């Protein structure tokens, strides 16, 4: 366990409790995002995965517990953190173009009242190019496919040039091209020493895409490197003993084992 004040750890959550009205959603959660790693948060529906992320960012009030980004409260480390919300949270009919949305990631740096200038637009276009959407920069966002919209959000986070990326279900119902583009971006981020924490729902791809995993079901059941943590036993503890899920988990574990061997032989 890392010290909560340690300034090189991107995200440390201790004893986090979150409640909607009187219903507790996250219960005594401890979570560490190690630097330079890709971290998945997985768990069943309604387990509080997105809630934990949102609470860490101060979007939902915290009942108790503490959250530190690079050893600091969020307000002080804001410029080092980029957030990619779920695609469904915004109105995609909004009259803005893709490059406008990406430029929103630069607003804070611009400051009050100053309009977006050519420099920011160029930066936004560069971020769009990284996710393979250069040709779509001036399209209105409702004319993009779901996967492209997700990539626009990703580009907005990239434009912020942060050290920690928090992504809420970036792989949810996206096409194969987008999935590949996101994975490429994640790996590129890792190669530059950045950290990414993704809420993830697709168990089979966890070993392929991520280095670390946190299994969450109201509380963090287990967390650590994928090959140690992503075991059938832990998955059973997280998801319960439902048959289909166990089957799926067994497959995922098998794949994790194979890919671990594969990595070992390399």
């Amino acid at each position, binding site marked *: 366990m890392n010290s909560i004040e340690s300034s090189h750890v991107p995200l440390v959550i201790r004893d986090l409790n979150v409640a909607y009205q009187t219903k507790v959603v996250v219960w005594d959660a401890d979570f560490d995002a190690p630097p330079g790693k890709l971290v998945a948060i997985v768990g069943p529906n309604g387990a509080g995965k997105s809630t934990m992320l949102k609470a860490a960012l101060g979007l939902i009030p915290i009942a108790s517990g503490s959250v530190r980004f690079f050893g600091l409260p969020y307000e002080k480390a804001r410029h080092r953190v980029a957030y990619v919300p779920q695609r469904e949270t*915004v109105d995609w009919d909004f009259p*803005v173009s893709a490059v406008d949305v990406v430029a929103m990631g630069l607003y804070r740096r611009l400051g009050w009242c100053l309009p*977006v200038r050519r420099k920011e637009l160029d930066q936004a276009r560069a971020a769009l190019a990284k996710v393979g959407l250069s040709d779509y920069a001036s399209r209105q966002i409702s004319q993009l496919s779901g996967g492209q919209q997700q990539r626009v959000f990703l580009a907005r986070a990239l434009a912020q040039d942060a050290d920690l990326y928090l992504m809420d279900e970036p792989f949810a119902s996206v096409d194969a091209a987008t999935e590949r583009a996101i994975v490429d971006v994640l790996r590129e981020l890792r190669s530059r020493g950045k950290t990414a924490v993704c809420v993830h729902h697709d168990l089979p791809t966890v070993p392929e895409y991520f280095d670390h995993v946190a299994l969450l079901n109201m509380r963090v059941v287990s967390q650590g490197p994928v090959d140690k943590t992503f075991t059938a036993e832990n998955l059973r503890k997280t998801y319960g003993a439902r048959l289909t899920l166990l089957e799926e988990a067994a497959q995922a574990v098998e794949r994790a084992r194979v890919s671990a061997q594969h990595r070992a032989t390399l």
Partner: protein
Amino acid sequence: MEKRLLPAANSLMNRARQFIPIGLLALLLGLLAWLLNRADSPIGHTHGPGETHANEVRVSRRSGKSITDTGIQWPSREKLWRTLTLADYNTRVVFAGVTALGAAGGLVGTFLLLRKRSLLSDTVSHCTLPGIALAFLIGESMGISGRSLPLLLFGATVTGVLGMMSVAAIRAKSRIKDDAALAIVLSVFFGLGIALLVVIQQLPTGNAAGLAHFIYGKAASMTAGDARLIFFASVAVALVCAALFKEFKLLCFDTDFARTQGWPTLALDLALMGLVVAVTVIGLQAVGLLLVVALLIVPAAAARFWSHRLGVTMLLASLIGAISGLVGVAASALFPKLPAGAVIVLSSVLCFSVSFFFGAKRGLLVRWLDQRRVAARVARQHLLRALYEWCESQALQHLGDPLQLLDRPVPIAELRQANHWNLARLTRLLRLGAAEGLIIWNPDSHACHLSAEGKLEARRVTRNHRLWETYLLHYADVAPQHIHHNADQIEHVIEPNIVNELEELLAGREGGALVPADPEKTTSANSDTPS
């Protein structure tokens, strides 16, 4: 020492920045107050255009028999000329004021519409009534004239803000949904306002007649001072909109993201709502509290049909608002009987109706044409594929090369049977195909065949279709019996670059055949053998 001071100063600065929108709003309100003072200055006490015109009308003779039964008096030519050329100073000021008001309403309204809070303006406007009545009562009991405009507008602002805050509080602190919160606050505040008005009517000094203007609006009775106030306040509102354009845009699009970025979303929201209150209050006199909401809702909703760019939408909305304002004031100056507010609203609703049908981006006509174009393309592809597949089935039966068999005439009856088309639909499709030069078909004959161009297109369409089928079969967990159905839908939204990608992906597997074999047939053949 410095080291300790610097962070402190920084955090102070940070905290100060949080209050910039509120500061701007305070500035706006300050300006408003100053103008209110000016409005009462002696210059303001000239006659309003409505009054002078009314006198003129009384002198002018009534013309036009056919419309006498409507009770409308047509203006004299001289008056028409004087109004339209803005000969009077008062007319000029009133025109400028109401036009600016319409423009400001369009700007604020666009943000409000995108924030999905359009009806908040309705609630706010109703909430101003108790404020007006209370201000009147307090003014009377303190010996000030209860009809002093600054006092009444101040009261309106206070209860307007209070109503807005109540909606926000109910929304944040209870399970009550948005629309119910709006309706509750609206009805209770308006009820209070009416209760107070009834009391005022009983006061010995109180003559509530002046207050009624605030309910229905009376642009014609505005003094030059009032109009100047409206003009400058509208300009101030527009300036705030321009200054906070980027911030409001982010707030309306993605509030959560704005919060994680450290924008004070609550303060920004309050600033936006403050602008709504400002427009409502300054519009009270011209349009009346029952219709002032239209200034905020209708132009914005109309402009939305024309553009996918926020800046353009806002400019259009303010233009529509300004024109409506202009039309309304002109109408009420020329026909003193017509209520200016209602004419303003009707002209903007007219703009809305035109936009609704003919808007360039989201209008009904454009969308209908788009839909038809897609339907036509789908039908054409369907026909070409049907022709191709028939030729292919012949090739399979006769073991020939399908490409050579494309020249064959296809019997219409078999085409119909294979695709469950009715005759009328098939005939229409064939006629369209023939018109495009893809098919050679004589309406009298019972067969048709593909033209040279049609052969190429049919091959392309069929190939495209089968690529998708194969893709779905190999890459997605779609049951083979559903594949045909799904591919039919997906291929119609497919982009060319993805097609290329698929071709590369599948060329190897399918042995590089130009048209890969129909996967439905191969899978059914495969599934038959093992069991």
